């Protein structure tokens, strides 16, 4: 049933697939965090055109299927630009841009609960808006947003399985290829699922530890309610 597990070729495929999955998730979730933060700042402090552009961006990435976004990026954009771009690069970007659409919401929500009085306080001691954002608002917002960020990570990890539909061999893709040749359907998929489970659970645990470690009395998720 599980003999194939000891085949070095299959082992290599699984490890390579896992690496792709981990890479694209981490890249996506970090690019999403950076870009999501900028979008949140733009939405809170920008003028009307900026806010409008951000709204369009967010609605596009939240309102259309990730797979469609991937297809557009991988199959349409290189043709439009008449310039070959590596599929993996485009796919990574799509995950980051997509995640930014969601993370902007988390960051904005967190910042809104902090902004009013803390911005006043920052300005009152002579700091600029930008300094206050960086030194006061964001450090608090990131602490509040950690649990939502962990959720985003979980869902993004699982979404990466659509990568195989644009020809990128991620963990699910690797599993599928192995199953096609071994015909061990149930054990194969169960094994793949377990890898996802272990990776997501360990990462969430790490984030829980960071959350607890970085927690400051008085700054908690319940501020959002």
């Amino acid at each position, binding site marked *: 049933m599980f003999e194939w597990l000891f085949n070095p070729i299959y082992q290599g495929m699984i490890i390579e697939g896992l690496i792709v999955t981990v890479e694209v998730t981490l890249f996506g979730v970090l690019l999403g965090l950076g870009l999501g933060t900028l979008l949140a700042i733009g939405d809170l402090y920008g003028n009307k055109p900026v806010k409008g552009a951000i709204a369009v961006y967010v609605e596009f990435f939240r309102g259309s299927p990730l797979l469609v976004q991937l297809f557009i990026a991988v199959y349409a954009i290189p043709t439009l630009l008449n310039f070959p771009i590596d599929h993996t690069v485009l796919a990574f970007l799509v995950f980051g841009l997509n995640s930014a659409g969601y993370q902007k919401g988390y960051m904005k929500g967190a910042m809104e609960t902090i902004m009013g009085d803390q911005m006043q306080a920052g300005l009152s001691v002579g700091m600029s808006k930008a300094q206050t954002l960086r030194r006061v608002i964001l450090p608090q917002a990131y602490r509040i947003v950690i649990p939502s960020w962990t959720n985003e990570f979980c869902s993004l990890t699982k979404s990466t399985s659509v990568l195989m539909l644009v020809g990128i061999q991620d963990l699910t893709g690797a599993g599928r290829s192995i199953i096609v040749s071994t015909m061990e359907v149930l054990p194969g998929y169960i094994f793949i699922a377990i890898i996802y489970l272990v990776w997501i659970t360990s990462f969430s645990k790490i984030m829980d530890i960071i959350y607890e470690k970085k927690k400051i009395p008085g*700054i908690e998720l319940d501020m959002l309610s």
Partner: protein
Amino acid sequence: MTNYVMEARHLFKTYVEKKAKKTKEVGGDTCPTGKHIVDAVQDVSLQIRKGDIKLIFGPSGSGKSTFLRCMAMLETPDKGQIFLGDEELTKSGVDVNKARARIGFVFQHIYLFRHLTALGNVELALRQVLKLPKEEARKRALDALAEVKVSDCINRYPSQMSGGQAQRVGIARAIARNPDIILLDEPTSALDPELTGEVIDTLRDLAREGTTMLIVSHEMPFAREVAEEMIFYDEGKIVETGPPSQFFNAPNTDRAKRFMDRIINRTTRE
């Protein structure tokens, strides 16, 4: 050259208060809906010399806080000028952040930085604004915290302090930069009565050291003791100014008289 630490000339500020839509009260009354324009500051001029302690008081909603926030450039006045020493803050192109660094501000609702300890709260501007080296910033922060007598809770976060301690940290944060003037917006009115005493004591200490202060407050015994001048403010205007004795004995205007009566009666009844 002016002799004033700070000066307001013919200041105006109105703001639009948005009322909640159709708020139904229990009695069946409905609140007025729509926009409501508040004339918070209407042609207000004020001069403050070095070492002055002036106290603004008046009914709530009269615009005292808005005026004070304009002085600190936390709100931009619609019209008029504000001078800090010789520098006009209301001129376009002035770096208001730099100007604010020379003004201490104490908030009614304290507004400490929630992610920083008492020490961190005081240190932040010393590091970020005055760009002091770490050691020196720490030393000055500790001095400021010692001055307001909160040395025992320097490592506590705002949520772990009592209101009185937090407000004294707020005062330490305002004085640590050695500002030219400190503006205090009802520094005790959000505190429990038994905690106001410790904050008042701190302000008394500052007064003794000759700190220039403009205070919005209704702490009448304190006003009587430290203020050189009291300013009665109502409906966006300075109605009457004078030494405490004038207000406590015989205010010139009826409005000030009625207000003083109410306040003094309330105080004696307690």
